[in-house]
């Protein structure tokens, strides 16, 4: 596929992501307002950060006058899953992809952009990731700005319905490979079950959602890797993820 058509395909897949983003970042704008962000500052802040849990933690820290170091630590914790995701993404590049494009793809990574990029068949075309971010990023930023301006005026019912758009996309990403590979299906089912248990059992339920994601991802993926490792690399080093 040519660079241009990969970019266009990215824009098309980025649109539903942007719709889901809009609802989430709108509610984020309401919190950002409490931290004293103007719509313009909120727009650029969201455009360059693009992290739901991370921004939520950040804007709350601003509102409560946390120290700069506290903000650094909470930002690292809220976004630590991107370390794992981008370790996985680092393996999606063809050796011909230069370092600048790799870094830009890395900076584009959000939960959703990562999800569609890792689902790209074979080596990732960076243009695809850029196309998706070119659409979804500004929608995310716009949602935050409008949330700061008009927070609280959108009907609760509409916010509630829009807020599951992101999860619908996650399902569209994890279900097809679960159909093809039974080990993935079992890992996904175990993830649902353990994640639910972690949210209701005493003690562990006090762990934040971000930390829960990191712990469970590491444990479940490690167990799956031990029980059902991927086939060994062929001698010519072809792509095994296809």
């Amino acid at each position, binding site marked *: 596929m040519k660079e241009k058509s990969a970019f266009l395909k990215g824009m098309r897949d980025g*649109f*539903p*992501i942007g719709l889901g983003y809009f609802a989430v970042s709108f509610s984020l704008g309401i919190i950002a307002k409490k931290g*004293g*962000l103007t719509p313009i*500052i909120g727009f650029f*802040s969201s455009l360059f*950060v693009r992290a739901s849990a991370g921004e939520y933690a950040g804007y709350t*820290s*601003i509102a409560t006058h946390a120290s700069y170091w506290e903000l650094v630590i909470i*930002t690292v914790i809220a*976004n630590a899953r*991107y*370390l*794992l*995701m*981008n*370790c*996985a*993404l*680092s*393996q999606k590049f063809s050796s011909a992809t230069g370092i600048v494009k*790799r*870094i830009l793809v*890395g*900076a584009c990574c959000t*939960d959703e952009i*990562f*999800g569609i990029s890792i689902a790209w068949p074979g080596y990732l075309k960076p243009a695809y990731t850029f196309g998706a971010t070119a659409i979804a990023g500004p929608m995310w930023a716009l949602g935050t700005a409008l949330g700061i301006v008009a927070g609280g005026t959108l009907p609760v*019912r509409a916010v*509630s*319905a829009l*807020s*599951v*758009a*992101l*999860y*619908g*996309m*996650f*399902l*569209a990403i*994890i*279900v*097809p490979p679960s159909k093809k590979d039974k080990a993935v299906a079992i*890992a996904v089912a175990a*993830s649902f079950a353990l*994640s*639910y248990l972690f949210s209701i059992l005493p003690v562990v339920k006090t762990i934040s*959602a971000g930390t829960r*994601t990191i712990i469970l*991802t590491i444990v479940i*993926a*490690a167990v*799956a*890797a*031990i029980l*059902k*490792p991927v086939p060994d*690399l062929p001698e010519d080093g072809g792509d095994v993820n296809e």
Partner: protein
Amino acid sequence: MSDTLRVLIYILIMILVTNGIRVLPITLIRKPIKNRFVRSFLYYVPYVTLAVMTFPAIMEATQSPIAGLAALVLGILAAFFGLGLLPVSIICCVVVFLIELFI
């Protein structure tokens, strides 16, 4: 220090730290990983992490947990029968909207 300046410093920290975390593994790992365990681990990471983030969060995102659960089940079915990102998302939103209309 003015409030605007303080907010700008906070935001600059958020931008630098968040993108630093994103770029770090990409700059450190430039070659295909040979180790079979690490490759297997990274193969499962995306699906596991998205699954963990979806459930039970989908039930907490909606006004009524039942609506979120229904969106999860119908979303899985829609994706199982081959629908793409946008249609699955829309189905989930419509399901929540309709169910919350009646309860």
